């Protein structure tokens, strides 16, 4: 077994965040998105997409009142970086592979496009780790499963999630219309309001 079980995470403070020009979503509604998927499927076959799971440790300090005393509690808990569009829609950084594109190269391309500054001197060296999950979309609907459902011979999409190892200092530049959130694992677990909550919830394991 070559896979490493320990993932290094660094405190949020060691990362620098900037902004860049907005990156608009291609679709304005779920229906539009599914319609566009159908068109692409006719042209190119099954859609393969890749997403990156970027983990970082966030050190939080908070005070609680216990009787007459004020206690300071601190905890370190891994958080995942998510991109938030609008007010409620969250997703992992990533996207669709071009036809014939290698998964790892595609993920690096997507991560740079969503998270890296435009100037070539500030491009991070993305360290892509193991694939931690594969999700399948059997029909042109929003439901996805962690296996290809039986009786499905022509899945419409296959999405692979990869762990991305962050170095101790990175410079991220996020499109102005998106927000980069660091969401703790306990908030993702069982939280179906976060889009792809089920896709992301697996990482907690």
């Amino acid at each position: 077994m070559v896979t490493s079980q320990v993932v290094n995470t660094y405190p949020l403070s060691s990362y620098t965040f900037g902004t860049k020009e907005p990156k608009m979503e291609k679709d304005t509604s779920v229906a539009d998105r599914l319609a566009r998927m159908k068109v692409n499927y006719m042209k190119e076959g099954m859609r393969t997409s890749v997403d990156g799971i970027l983990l970082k440790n966030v050190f939080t300090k908070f005070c609680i009142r216990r009787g007459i005393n004020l206690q300071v509690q601190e905890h370190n808990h891994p958080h995942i970086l998510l991109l938030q569009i609008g007010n409620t829609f969250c997703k992992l950084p990533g996207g669709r592979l071009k036809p014939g594109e290698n998964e790892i190269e595609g993920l690096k391309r997507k991560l740079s496009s969503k998270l890296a500054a435009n100037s070539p001197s500030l491009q991070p060296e993305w360290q892509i780790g193991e694939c931690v999950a594969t999700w399948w979309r059997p029909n042109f609907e929003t439901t996805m499963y962690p296996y290809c459902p039986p009786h499905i011979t022509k899945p419409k999409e296959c999405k692979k999630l990869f762990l991305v190892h962050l170095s101790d200092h990175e410079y991220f530049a996020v499109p102005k219309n998106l927000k980069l959130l660091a969401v703790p694992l306990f908030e993702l677990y069982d939280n179906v309001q976060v889009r792809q909550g089920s896709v992301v919830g697996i990482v907690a394991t």
Partner: protein
Amino acid sequence: MDDANAATGNGNSHQTSLGDSSVLDVYPLSCYYFGSMDSVPFKNETVADRVLRMKANYDAYGMRNCVAAVIVYVSALQPELVVMDKVELFKHPHLLLLQVQNSIYKLPGGRLRPGESDIQCLKRKLSSKLSAGEDGRGPEWEIGECLGVWWRPGFETLLYPYLPPNTKRPKECIKLFLVKLPTSRRFIVPKNFRLLAVPLCQLHDNDETYGPIISGVPQLLSKFSFNFVEP
């Protein structure tokens, strides 16, 4: 058979850089032999009794460490439709589960003895629950990687797939390991347990029937692509 390959493979025609550790060989159910042995007593206790027992054990031994085996093989599903007079049998991975009484499902495994390692305990439990005896006369079990860890922060709390923040003294830790099956195997099961092969599609999101650990197994397995080996 190209269509079937698209469904069972990972759909990506490129070599991934993951190496062989992400491909699992699974063999058809027909390669395995199933027999039975004497019943193994199952602790039938109330929830309150169980909490008391866990507290007593915690005071004596500290955090309860458990291991569980994730054993996968393939079984053809009953076809629901007959298409053009040809019956398609779709291969779908199944998980081996022990059913105790009508509604309790468990992964083969159990609690570590003091000083025992995870792997030793798992082999011991697999031998005692699934083969002829605990004395190691049975064949060797090939234990693979750790797929996931579940934590219980308090005696009466739920299990979580992460250590909740501010948990200073977790009460239980359950580690799930992949167990690779050889091409054929004799399974001998205690009479009061039923050994089931449950398809992943039935487990997914089915917390009410199987509990969070078992219903979460399909997600843990999704990183593997299954190589269905014909006997």
